[in-house]
């Protein structure tokens, strides 16, 4: 049965955020007998509450609290109030994620060594290696049921994949398949197999896709060691005179404020809210915000190099049928500087329904050319381009000087400028993506600009030295021993791969570390 803890129970670990990082960490700790209070800003919407309705689900689960944007990135122009497309609900962004679960490449944990100095980029090697991560990647893949690992068959390819694969083959690419997806290709772990519904981004109606909402969280609750508090927005992390954190001030669904005492606090609110919470927790002792002696909290914001290519053919494709992202070409993922940029990118199938296609194909576009493109919808195939972007110190989450949220706290501003390396990579990816489709007869291709960021990374980065970053190799803040970061904001660099598998692997690893340190009374 789900536990219920007292507000003044200072023996609990308080986890803030219930997505890939926080949801996994909470369950892993609960399984080890550690008591957990999981605060989630959003509501609890179960599978039966999901609908195959793009705008309907967008309104129901997206993080729509006020945010501002700045910088030269196109998102600031197209979606000035919506820099990120993430979820505010129990399960976090694992409710709407596509399921792509890729390991980083070996060199992507040590890019400063591999790429050398890149002007304007704040590169740093991770304090951990692929070899150290491998056992945790294994556990994460097993937990999530990732296809193509642990003897789990890959998903069958849908129409959109078949077009991608045919083009890839024509172009001479070698490494393409339906991906490593945390979507059951056969029944596993009490959940059924994928029914090729589509609408992966709207919450999986069959539960075939892994989400903490209906895996980690109920499993954790069953232990009797874990309490989930939905609609509970963390406002401030509190600390004592010795500089240890002592609890979390949060607002419940009615706006009433409470303090949950804590032995340990783990922050997993995604890469905008996590640094914002540390900055909003500034005090006389920590005037620049918690865990910010390095000055790196909120900085080095990454969002992956992204873009999409859609192509119209003279015959039907029906890309909307079936799994949204089960298709990948990996040939461009390596670091081949001779292409004119460092790092690499993946090409992954992507489809949008007509409602979202109208909004995202070419934001703001109208007129006959746009309408003609929409009339080609049934004959369209699509891919998403996702690659490593360069961390830059100036790309940052900061507190807005004047704008306040519903609790009177400064809203976050998200500043991002593309690095020249990002621009060169995007250009290459657009060209190759278009070539894939042209190889199999595309009559028209579209270079679709980035959507609001789904991969938000790096704003509390991991570093070997306390002066270079916010957390150590276990996600423990350099400054405060009982304060942890448990989401993608701890990424030192972004790699080319979709981040969720790495977030989950880090959370499993962190749970082992926290339980060990608590057992030894070291935190």
């Amino acid at each position: 049965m789900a536990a219920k803890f007292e507000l003044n129970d200072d023996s609990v670990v308080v986890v803030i955020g219930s997505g890939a990082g926080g949801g996994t960490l909470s369950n892993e700790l609960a399984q080890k007998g550690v008591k957990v209070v999981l605060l989630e800003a959003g509501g609890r919407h179960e599978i039966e509450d999901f609908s195959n309705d793009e705008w309907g689900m967008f309104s129901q689960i997206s993080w729509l609290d006020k945010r501002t944007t700045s910088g030269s990135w196109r998102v600031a122009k197209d979606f000035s109030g919506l820099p990120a497309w993430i979820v505010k609900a129990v399960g976090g962004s694992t409710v709407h994620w596509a399921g792509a679960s890729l390991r980083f490449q070996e060199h992507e944990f040590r890019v400063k060594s591999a790429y050398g100095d890149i002007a304007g980029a704040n590169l740093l090697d991770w304090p951990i290696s692929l070899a150290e991560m491998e056992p945790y990647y294994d556990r994460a893949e097993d937990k999530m049921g990732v296809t193509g690992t642990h003897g789990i068959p890959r998903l069958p390819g849908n129409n959109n994949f078949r077009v991608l694969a045919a083009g890839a083959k024509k172009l001479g690419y070698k490494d393409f398949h339906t991906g490593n997806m945390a979507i059951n290709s056969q029944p596993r772990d009490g959940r059924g197999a994928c029914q090729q519904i589509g609408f992966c981004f709207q919450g999986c109606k069959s539960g075939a896709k892994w989400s903490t909402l209906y895996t980690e969280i109920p499993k954790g609750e069953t232990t009797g060691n874990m309490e989930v508090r939905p609609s509970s927005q963390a406002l401030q992390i509190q600390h004592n005179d010795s500089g240890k954190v002592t609890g979390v001030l949060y607002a419940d669904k009615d706006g009433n404020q409470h303090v949950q005492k804590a032995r340990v606090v783990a922050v997993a609110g995604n890469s905008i809210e996590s640094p914002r919470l540390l900055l909003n927790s500034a005090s006389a002792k920590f005037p620049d915000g918690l865990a910010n002696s390095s000055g790196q909290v909120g900085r080095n914001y990454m969002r992956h190099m992204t873009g999409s290519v859609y192509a119209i053919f003279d015959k039907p494709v029906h890309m909307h049928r079936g799994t949204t992202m089960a298709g990948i070409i990996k040939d461009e993922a390596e670091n081949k500087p001779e292409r004119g940029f460092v790092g690499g990118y993946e090409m992954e199938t992507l489809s949008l329904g007509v409602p979202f296609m109208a909004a995202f194909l070419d934001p703001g576009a109208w007129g006959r050319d746009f309408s003609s493109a929409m009339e080609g919808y049934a004959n369209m195939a699509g891919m998403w381009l996702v690659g490593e972007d360069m961390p830059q110190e100036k790309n940052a989450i900061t507190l807005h000087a004047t704008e306040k949220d519903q609790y009177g706290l400064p809203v976050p501003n998200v500043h991002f400028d593309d690095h020249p390396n990002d621009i060169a990579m995007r250009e290459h990816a657009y060209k190759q993506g278009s070539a894939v489709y042209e190889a199999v007869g595309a009559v028209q291709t579209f270079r679709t600009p980035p959507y609001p960021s789904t991969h938000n990374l790096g704003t509390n980065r991991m570093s070997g030295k306390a002066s270079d970053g916010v957390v150590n190799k276990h996600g423990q803040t350099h400054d405060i021993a009982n304060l942890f970061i448990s989401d993608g904001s701890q990424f030192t660099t972004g790699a080319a791969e979709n981040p969720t598998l790495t977030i989950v692997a880090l959370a499993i690893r962190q749970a082992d570390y926290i339980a060990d340190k608590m057992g030894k009374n070291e935190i």
Partner: protein
Amino acid sequence: MAKSVMGRRAFLATTSAAGAMVLVAGGNLVIGGNGAWAMSTKALTGDEAAMLVRMARATYPHAMLDDSIYGKVIHGLDEKASADPALLRSLQEGAAALKEKKFETLDAAGQEAVLKDIEGSAPFQTVRGECVVGIYNNPDVWKVLGYEGPSAELGGYINRGFDDIDWLQDA
């Protein structure tokens, strides 16, 4: 729905060169689609609403879509404007600007050129913003565009053609 008070001759006279068959009858009524569809307005006049329906069609022109699709969006805007005087004024200004350009007499290219000139204006952006959601989130439009909408209730596509593409040489 009120009855049309215009005859066929008057109706034909108002059919624009762009094929947007919108006409106005009475103070707060818009009739289109050869009389197959009509709407009444709350805040805008019928003339103004008809002009905005033309604007909507010229913004996202689809010959296969009935006026009713565009009309539904403008009907929603009229409803909002009835409780929002600033929005109403903006929409009225937009309609007036098009009237001055004799928008209804222009061909498709001419209409697009007029809209290009006012692209940055608040009324245009309001109508465009409503249209891009209102038109493309309409299941009647999905059918025309070949999008099948919700599938979970139908068991997904596992047995309904998720991989039925038949024209690829080698896939």
